[in-house]
């Protein structure tokens, strides 16, 4: 940037000169990188190359460094940051359209079944786990490298700016975004003293420049906190990302279905499903045991909300490592915190309580069997497996039952047996019965909620139809041929709990709140400079010039200047203009102002 008034060759007009002036005067008003006009020259694969291997090596090194610097400068430029932000937004879209592993396993499975060909393509592109895919990670990692590469130098620069004094006035104040001038009878010295006092009173950092070079003036600056806010915001984003990464690496999450009256211990072997981050140490699992005493679910019984849940509450007792017992309740929005684990209520259903006897008359099964809800009225399906049953002939003859539990039973042609309301107003257990080989000894893992009927035979009723029976609590049904009986004793409710511990949550919270505070500072505060210059004009009167420059364009910069000028006129009252057109020193004639923007460049 030049101090010279002459516009650079090839450019003309007041705009360019004014812009140049303004840029100089605005130097150091922000730590934002100056707009790079593709000035950086990479190694360019040219230049002298000394002969021999040494020369080639030196050349290669020089090239490599050149290119690396060029790449780094590109990466940390505002333009590339902008493009990366844009890419990040675009790259997030597919993940919201395609079912994602982790959040929607069922959707993924479904999609794979329906579109096998497309699924292969998606797999190659990692579209089933977009947010952990290589390309998505690449974008945000580049963005954050860019961010750090941008933030660190800016922080140093800002520390420098904090130490520096406000930039001196540019040569031509009338080219600043807000400008005013008037004449007064107060002596220039007094005007400047008053201006200095005024600006300091308004918490500007202000300096008086009386001196050899240039006309005396006051230079002032305010709003340094804006830069602090901006840096805090960007740094908080880094904190957030790190917290996010920690959350992904150090976490454990297990799910467990618990029937009323039963317990579980927080131990990996106890879970129905469990997953943890790669760096999570399983020995760190919080030690506790939990008993579900009672579960209540209530639902609206009338009006437009019929069947909508109004309350889910689990009464539990938990035992911590020190052997103490605590009673508490868990509901959907109030998880239980034990140490660094959180126990959340995530589902519920019914477990019919049955007793099964076999062909020998022995009780071979007794207890609640969780049935899985299929709809919002809690039509539930389930399987009862009885592997220890012995037939009337003394040979093992395993039994199994498959069917529905409906808290408010109804049956129709289309839907078969189903429930019409989620509370147990008319509970009925509807079952089919099987005998034969459950296949549990085959060594293959079995799903407790599914029945493999390949080696089983379904009982038929006296009329030759497949046997199906409805039971109300207390009912007993005898199976054909004396193979046994089943009694529907009653039912319990069950609840599923998720036990999770995750590191980094606090940091994520701190990071995001700091980001907001920083943002508010960055967007609401304005960093601006004000200059006041006063000198004795040709007619012996004092000419006062004031100008203001803000980092961002804002209507409030002129407004503030107006208020300041207004305050200053108390000490330097206005004189009416006798020459309406001539004004004070005509700004057209470039009065030499040697030291002009000298300080402005810091």
């Amino acid at each position: 940037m030049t101090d010279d008034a002459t516009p650079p060759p090839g450019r003309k007009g007041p705009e360019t000169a004014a812009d140049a002036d303004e840029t100089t005067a605005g130097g150091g008003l922000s730590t934002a990188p100056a707009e790079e006009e593709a000035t950086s020259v990479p190694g360019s694969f040219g230049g002298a190359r000394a002969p021999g291997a040494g020369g080639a090596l030196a050349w290669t090194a020089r090239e490599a460094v050149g290119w690396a610097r060029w790449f780094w400068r590109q990466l940390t430029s505002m333009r590339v940051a902008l493009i990366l932000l844009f890419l990040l937004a675009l790259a997030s879209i597919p993940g919201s359209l395609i079912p994602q592993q982790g959040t929607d396993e069922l959707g993924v499975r479904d999609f794979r079944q329906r579109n096998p060909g497309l699924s292969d393509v998606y797999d190659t592109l990692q579209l089933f786990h977009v947010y952990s895919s290589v390309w998505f990670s690449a974008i945000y990692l580049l963005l954050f490298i860019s961010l750090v590469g941008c933030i660190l130098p800016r922080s140093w620069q800002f520390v420098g700016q904090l130490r520096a004094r406000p930039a001196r006035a540019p040569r031509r104040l009338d080219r600043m975004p807000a400008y005013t001038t008037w004449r007064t009878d107060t002596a220039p010295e007094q005007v400047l003293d008053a201006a200095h006092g005024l600006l300091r009173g308004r918490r500007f950092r202000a300096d008086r420049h009386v001196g050899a070079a240039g006309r005396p003036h006051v230079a002032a600056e305010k709003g340094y906190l804006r830069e602090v806010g901006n840096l805090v915001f960007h740094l908080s984003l880094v904190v957030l990302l790190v917290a996010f990464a920690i959350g992904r690496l150090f976490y454990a999450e297990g799910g467990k279905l618990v029937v009323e009256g039963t317990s579980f211990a927080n131990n990996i072997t106890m879970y129905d499903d469990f997953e943890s981050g790669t760096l999570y140490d399983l020995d760190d699992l919080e030690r506790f045991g939990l008993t579900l005493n009672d579960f209540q679910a209530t639902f609206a019984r009338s009006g437009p909300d019929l069947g909508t849940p109004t309350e889910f509450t689990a009464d539990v007792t938990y035992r911590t490592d020190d052997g103490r017992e605590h009673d508490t309740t868990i509901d959907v929005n109030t998880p239980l915190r034990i140490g660094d684990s959180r126990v959340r209520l995530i589902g519920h259903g019914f477990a019919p309580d049955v007793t099964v006897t076999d062909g020998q008359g022995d009780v071979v099964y007794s207890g609640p069997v969780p049935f899985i809800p299929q709809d919002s009225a809690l039509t539930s399906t389930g399987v009862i497996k009885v592997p220890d049953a012995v037939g009337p002939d003394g040979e093992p003859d395993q039994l199994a039952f498959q069917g529905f539990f409906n808290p408010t039973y109804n049956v129709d042609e289309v839907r078969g047996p189903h429930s019409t309301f989620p509370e147990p107003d008319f509970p009925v257990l509807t079952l089919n019965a099987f005998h034969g080989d459950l296949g549990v000894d085959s060594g293959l893992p079995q799903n407790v909620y599914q029945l493999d009927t390949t080696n089983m035979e379904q009982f038929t009723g006296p009329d030759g139809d497949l046997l199906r029976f409805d039971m109300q609590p207390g009912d007993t049904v005898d199976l054909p041929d004396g193979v046994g009986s089943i009694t529907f004793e009653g039912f319990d409710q069950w609840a599923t709990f998720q036990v999770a511990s995750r590191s980094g949550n606090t940091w994520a919270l701190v990071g995001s709140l700091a980001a907001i505070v920083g943002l508010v500072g960055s967007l609401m505060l304005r960093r601006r400079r004000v200059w006041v210059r006063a000198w004795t004009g040709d007619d012996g009167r004092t000419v006062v010039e004031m100008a203001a420059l803000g980092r961002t364009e804002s209507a409030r910069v002129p407004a503030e200047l107006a208020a300041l000028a207004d305050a200053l006129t108390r000490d330097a009252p206005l004189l009416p203009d006798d020459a309406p057109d001539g004004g004070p020193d005509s700004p057209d004639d470039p009065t030499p102002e040697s030291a002009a923007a000298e300080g402005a460049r810091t």
Partner: protein
Amino acid sequence: MTLAAANEGLADLSNTLVYAAMAVYALTFLAYTAEWILGSRSKVARTATALTAERAGQDDAEAAVPAQRPAVTVREAGGTSVLERPRIVSRSTTPARDAVPDGPGAAGEDEQGDTYGRIAVSLTVLAFLLHLGAVITRAVAVGRGPWGNMYEFSVALAVVGIAGYLGFLAARTPVRWLGLPLVTTVLLDLGLAVTVLYNEQTQLVPALDSVWMWIHVPLAIVCGGLFYLGAISAVLYLFRDRYETKLATGGQPGRLATSVMERLPSSLTLDRFSYRINAAVFPVWTFTIVAGAIWAETAWGRYWAWDPKETWAFITWVAYAAYLHARATAGWKGRRAAYLAIAGVICFLINYFGVNIFFDSLHGYGGV
């Protein structure tokens, strides 16, 4: 039982108020339209003058400067000369457009048009009161925040947009030009709400029964309504900017374009208005997302899981972050920044309408 009946009565009253508000908005729409039509009779064409003067000034380097020089004005009052405050001259960093004055508004300089404009504003106030009444009675009737499903959300979103508009008017910001586009879209939104989205459900599922329901959701509505105002301004900016560019390069825009564009504020004013709103709302939107994450952490056990709703909130956020960056980067100011602001609102709307209806999201229980 009587309480339930009373609530049902209130819910009906709320519905009636929505329809009443829609009727008044329709009248408002007509009044704004009348303002635009009558305003076209006046002949205002200052933009071209300003821009051509500026071009002449460019040719003769220094000639433009005196025009900008401040003078200490002397105002005659009661015969004596009263000294005014020093007058502030401001110039923007896009000096070429600096001298372009704001248009006079839809009414142009037509008095009758202005009358219709005033009527339209009064009607907007009336419709707003009915509309607000509808939201409040609904809240009382259902005994919770009136933002439990898409119907309620749409009604509340529109009320925020109108409230913002009236708020600017009350603060003496000349934004009457927002009236017509805003009321038109508010009518569309309400129409959609009472037909497609209508839902008389009052109960919330237990997961929504949380203090965050009182923080996260209303804030999202406020952000949406205000971002929307910013986006209208950005769209108008794009048109007005093209018009000004055409004039500045010596083009001759059509008569209709001239008539409409001349009455809008200058591109600079539109751009700044849009920026001020977006910059003020962005931190609030950030907080809205953080509040949602805190809620998700308690209700679902994780603060962020890329659920479609979360994803689109994030996309919206990134779009606005890009917008603010663009404003700070020389090569991206102006039109490209405006496109980003519009993209931001579109993302918000996709998140709101699209995700609830077409996506499989945990947030889907709001009920369509």
